[in-house]
């Protein structure tokens, strides 16, 4: 896919977590193409360095920081470093997320849920907590959280993952409500099945079983999505084109959540 926008984020500074791969990496590259300066974070330093290389290849300016978003001090350090380096933050993309184990409920002792909530929910809470005072003072800012269709319906992830993404969608609304008066917008994207590092096991399993053609068959477009397609929705919500949009959770899912999609129904 070629460039669609041009200069949408000229002069803006964006912090992107979970940027070592997939949607986070695609977002970093597209943001850079649109003129944003970046501070990117992940626990995977090798992937992060590769994203930074790709961003610089696009002529983008970027700093990297290893960050476990479930640890508040690390998130604070990330925001502080971005602020001291660039002296402002216009956009925050809370994209870091983990899937959790495929535990059945009778095996669940709470530790997996706590780990998943730590990254998927508290990661966003900490980042917004530490970036909000800065954005409130400037009376502007755009925050985009990467949630999931799993946060809207069942069958798209583990129990812990799905519940954490539902929590993130609700937090998107409460944060949007709290920060709206300061012209700080908070929205979420809800990706369906996207080909990323996180979903690699699903793609490998389908390949093993010779069912690759079934990947994405649950959505109306009958295909899986690409990280760039989610990144472009994140870009839209982060840009001034969306200046009156806040508190929204936008599915980028090929129509998955819009239909019952009963197999075999034909007209």
């Amino acid at each position: 896919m070629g460039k669609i926008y041009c200069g949408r984020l000229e002069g803006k500074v964006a912090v992107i977590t979970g940027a070592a791969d997939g949607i986070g990496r695609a977002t970093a590259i597209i943001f850079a193409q649109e003129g944003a300066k970046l501070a990117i974070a992940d626990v995977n330093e090798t992937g992060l360095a590769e994203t930074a290389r790709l961003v610089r290849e696009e002529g983008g300016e970027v700093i990297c920081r290893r960050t476990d978003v479930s640890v508040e001090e690390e998130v604070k350090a990330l925001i502080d470093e971005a602020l001291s380096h660039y002296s402002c933050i216009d956009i925050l993309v809370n994209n870091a997320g983990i899937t959790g184990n495929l535990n059945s409920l009778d095996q669940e002792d709470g530790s997996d849920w706590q780990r998943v909530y730590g990254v998927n929910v508290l990661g966003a809470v900490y980042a917004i907590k530490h970036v909000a005072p800065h954005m409130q003072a400037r009376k502007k800012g755009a925050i985009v959280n990467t949630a999931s269709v799993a946060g809207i319906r069942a069958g798209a992830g583990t129990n812990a993952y799905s519940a954490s993404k539902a929590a993130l969608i609700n937090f998107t609304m409460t944060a949007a409500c709290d920060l709206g008066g300061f012209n700080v917008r908070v929205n979420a994207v809800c990706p369906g099945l996207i080909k990323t590092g996180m979903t690699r096991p699903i793609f490998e399993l389908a390949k093993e079983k010779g069912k690759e053609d079934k990947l994405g068959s649950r959505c109306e477009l009958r295909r899986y999505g690409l990280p760039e397609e989610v990144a472009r929705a994140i870009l839209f919500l982060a840009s001034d084109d969306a200046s009156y949009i806040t508190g929204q959770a936008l599915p980028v899912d090929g129509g998955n959540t819009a239909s019952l999609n009963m197999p075999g129904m034909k007209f």
Partner: protein
Amino acid sequence: MGNVTFNFEGKVAIVTGGGRGIGRAIALGLAGSGAQVVVTARTQSEIEQVAKEIEEKGGKVLPIVTDLTVPAQLEELVRETIKVFGRIDILVNNAARSFLRSLLELREDGWDKVFNTNVKAVWLLSRLVAKYMIEQKGGRIINITTVGAEKAELGMAAYGSSKAALKMLTRCMAREWAPFGILVNAVGPTLTRTDFSRPLWSNPELAKHVASAIPLGRIAEPEDIVGAVLFLASDAASFITGQTIYVDGGSLTT
């Protein structure tokens, strides 16, 4: 706004209710991004004024008077668009009717007028257009709904119900036409400063009250709605269908 940089060069769009308010802003936005735009509404003088504005900025435009509740006129609208521009890539179903009446006072023909314009005409026009989009192997349909499709408001029963129906029609069109590459989505504004909703914002006290209930602290201007429509009409939204983006300043968060 004015700095929208989506590129619709070579694309043809129809905007219903394009003579004023949100439809006018959308028509100007599409034309400003390179699309050839058919602006349609019932009032000739208004669409001609919009056409003049677009032409003055170097855009290509065709104003066509249409009463959307007359099926023969829908056919004529589509026929004329194809005759002049040769294709249809984007349809924005923006035209709507509303009567501010309580359920006890609303007349039966009032209910019918609202549903005929807001739901039935959208279905009929969309499927006329879809036939060309199917031949072209793709297209975008964007329906303008409202936050009133999700939450009830006094005096807005017919309007809100019709828009809730349009929200589902959006999903059904998305479902049926996905195999043909037609993506169908909706954009739902909150109270917007247009003639259509003048009774709701022209009273300063009422307007202040409404704005205070919106997290971003103000009602929408027509230009606020344009970005979401252009986004959904663009290649950037290639994996989005059957959805509604509410452009509501956070109205639906509470």
